[in-house]
């Protein structure tokens, strides 16, 4: 297999509240021999909120990010579902609407850039599965995750709207997604089947509709707990932040005790590939997760 090389769009959370996401992503890439170039010029994707305020501005900023991946001639990989969605939506809008593309390029020309539409945009999860390959990952496992029942939480913005994502997510069925389950399998963990795996975590209304947010996240975690999960794993840092940080609040709202570690997808892979504790960064979790390293080798 020729060496894989990607332009990494980190997004904002990996640079701030979830440094463990960035360190574990880079550690996994390093172990697998995947070359990563971080797009240090890339700005925030707007996270759907900038889009609510000013859709055109959001397209301009996202197109600018993609320009930097195009300059490198690389596929842009994301490590956040919401970054993936907003970048892919801009790409789709510009590639299918020449008039909009021209209007955006008119702005980009002012800073010496041009959006061409030559780079693919893919979440790291699907780069690992569809391009690196599950069998190849399996060969590199040094710490099988067989001690754990792992509940995959897919996160909305990687699987819906399916029409937008199908070109980059292996045709994932949004009503019965399998990619994370298959990855857990490849790492010899036990995937937990539960009905909330493809549901919403409520992150995006955390501030203005707190009750809704707590109920959605709480129901998902309780469903995972009731199906004997030892941990949840998600490819989205926003799902992670919601589900990791607010467990006591959501527990109060829905009337259940909730204590469950929530891992980022690359942390789970890093654990199985034998990356260091520092690279895993489990100490950055609000819900205690550091014991997982020891539990893995019991």
């Amino acid at each position: 297999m020729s060496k894989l090389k990607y332009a990494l769009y980190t997004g904002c959370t990996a640079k701030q509240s979830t440094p463990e996401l960035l360190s574990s992503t880079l550690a996994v890439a390093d172990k697998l021999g995947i070359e990563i170039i971080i797009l240090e010029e890339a700005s925030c994707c707007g996270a759907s909120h900038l889009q609510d305020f000013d859709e055109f501005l959001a397209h301009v900023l996202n197109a600018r990010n993609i320009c930097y991946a195009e300059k490198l001639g690389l596929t842009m990989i994301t490590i956040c579902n919401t970054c993936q969605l907003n970048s892919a939506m801009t790409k789709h809008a510009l590639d299918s609407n020449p008039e909009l593309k021209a209007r955006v390029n008119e702005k980009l020309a002012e800073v010496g850039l041009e959006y061409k539409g030559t780079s693919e945009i893919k979440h790291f999860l699907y780069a690992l599965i569809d391009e690196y390959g599950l069998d190849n990952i399996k060969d590199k496992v040094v710490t099988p995750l067989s001690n754990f029942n792992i509940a995959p939480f897919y996160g909305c913005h990687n699987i819906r709207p399916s029409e937008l994502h199908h070109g980059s997510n292996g045709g994932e069925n949004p009503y019965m997604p399998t990619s994370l389950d298959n990855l857990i399998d490849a790492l010899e963990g036990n995937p937990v089947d539960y009905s909330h795996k493809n549901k919403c975590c409520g992150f995006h209304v955390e501030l203005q509709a707190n009750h809704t947010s707590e109920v959605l996240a709480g129901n998902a975690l309780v469903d995972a707990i009731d199906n004997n999960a030892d941990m949840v794993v998600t490819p989205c840092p926003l799902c992670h932040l919601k589900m990791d940080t607010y467990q006591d609040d959501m527990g109060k709202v829905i009337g259940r005790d909730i204590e469950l570690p929530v891992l980022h997808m690359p942390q789970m892979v890093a654990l199985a590939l034998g990356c260091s504790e520092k690279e895993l960064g489990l100490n950055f979790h609000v819900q205690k997760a550091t014991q997982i390293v020891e539990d893995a080798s019991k």
Partner: protein
Amino acid sequence: MSNDKRKVTIKAWRFNAQTDYLPYTKEYKMEVGKDELVLDLMNKIKWEHDGSFSYRRSCRHGICGACAIKVNGKSVLACKQNAIELLDMFNNEITLEPQSKKRAVKDMIIDKSDFWDKHAQVKSYVVADIDPRPESESKQSIAQFNALLDADLCIQCGACHYACPVLEVNEDYLGPAALVAAFRFSADTRDEASKERLELTAQPRIGVWDCVKCYECAEACPKEVNPIEKIGKLHNMQFEQKVAQSNVATRHAEGFVRSIRKHGFLDEADIVVYSEGYLGMYKHLKTAYKMMKSGKIHWQDGVPFIDSMPKIKNLDEVQKLIDISMTNKL
């Protein structure tokens, strides 16, 4: 004509609200051909297995919206959804369910009154003083029609409404279908109630700011109306038409520009302080303490005049692009 028929066992959720204490699932063996629809499966159950099986059906042409149900949680219009495609999607194991189990009257038939109430709330019609005996039609140009962005294709089947997780938690929320209608009539140049509708859809708990952005509605719609796109347009229109009031949700949206202009990145601490205001921060002190303890945030984050934020390279480009591209104001 292919004679290849697939032998399958179809499950159906059964319940009669008048006589049953609990719902139950029944299995029906049948053969399914490549051109058959989910509606054909329901007809087979009723005509060949159990005449009491109940569902709504009318046009059989994907236009009346009566036969919408769910299959394995997926919203489908029974007269449009190919059965083999669906069987392939779910490894031949499918269960027919009503759109909303808690609203079930009999089997697939639900009480849709909540859906119609929300439509009435947004005045889903053109509000205009028109001559009751007009001399000619009130014509619309192609451009005026295109501005409706296919919102007019909605058949009120309820697929998006009963796929929306917010409505399960917050019964005041208008939901995707009514919000599509609110957009459709507010975008109509003949309409005179668009400000009133925008004000309604700007209200907390009721309007667009309670959308969780899960895209379940976009996935569910059998007519490809893409409801969340219209919800996004309503967000934009609230700012364009100066209906948006300064509150936690609107400041959160607008605050992204402030952060991106300063750092390129979103300043996660600042956006919370900016959206809530300093007085509103008391709600977040416990969370901030937990996040600080685990090293997710730092004491100086969100404190004015201390800039500990990482910056993107070539930030000046982003600042210039904001200056020349932004059109809306809060």
